[in-house]
């Protein structure tokens, strides 16, 4: 989990479109995960991710685990660039419009003491 600068997350005026954009996020490249001895290499990620809310409302709730999510199914698209300096590797995805996510939701959640 990475802290996001306030300028990194923006919403459209109607709140239906969210854009998360970050650069040089420190990550690890760990090709053999989840092997116990999987070696990891420092890497950096830059990405732009857009959520567009649809019309289908969703409610996910579990009183035992104390969470409630209310929102809408969404379309999510991503473009990203990964750098692994130690092996001189970079990878850039095709433009945002060409990506697709199988599952996406956007909304609000309460959990724990806020449940």
């Amino acid at each position, binding site marked *: 989990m990475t802290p996001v600068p306030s300028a990194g997350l923006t919403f459209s005026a109607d709140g239906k479109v969210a854009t998360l954009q*970050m650069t040089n996020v420190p*990550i690890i490249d760990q090709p053999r995960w989840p092997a116990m001895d999987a070696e990891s290499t420092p890497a950096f990620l830059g990405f732009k991710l857009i959520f567009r809310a649809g019309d289908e409302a969703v409610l996910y709730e*579990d009183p035992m685990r104390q*969470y409630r999510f209310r929102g809408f199914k969404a379309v999510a698209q*991503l473009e990203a660039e990964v750098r692994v300096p130690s092996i001189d590797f970079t990878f850039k*995805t095709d433009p945002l419009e060409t*990506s697709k996510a199988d599952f996406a939701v956007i909304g*609000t959640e309460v959990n724990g003491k806020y449940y």
Partner: protein
Amino acid sequence: MKNDHAFHFKVNRRHWLKLGVSSIVGGRLADTLLNAQSVTPSCAPAIPQNHEPSNGGACPYPIPWLDKNGNHNQPAAPNVELSSIFHFEGKLARCSGFHGMGTDNKGNRLTWGTPTTDYSYMAGEYWAARQPHEGIFAHT
């Protein structure tokens, strides 16, 4: 009896010698281990001074049934906990199962994405150190 005393004396001297060497090695090892520790995050709990209470740090609290790194062990899906922060109230979006194409620095065309290629943001209030905090976080 005399021999026994002499034996015990030698054992004790050896014991002290070993202890001395062990202390030196142990001390150096402790230094090495301490030097290997990661930088303390700014939200780590402060060491209380003057007998003040310790209320923990301002770092967000992870979801209790997830692993200690706060990672989700399940792809985002309907009817699962979508947040990475426990005691949270705010805006959240999550997605998983990305797939697409891309190009590496050698010009190779590669596919990317797996069912666990998931991203999320959490923007709002969370509870830590016995008080509310505002923050924006991303799970990448």
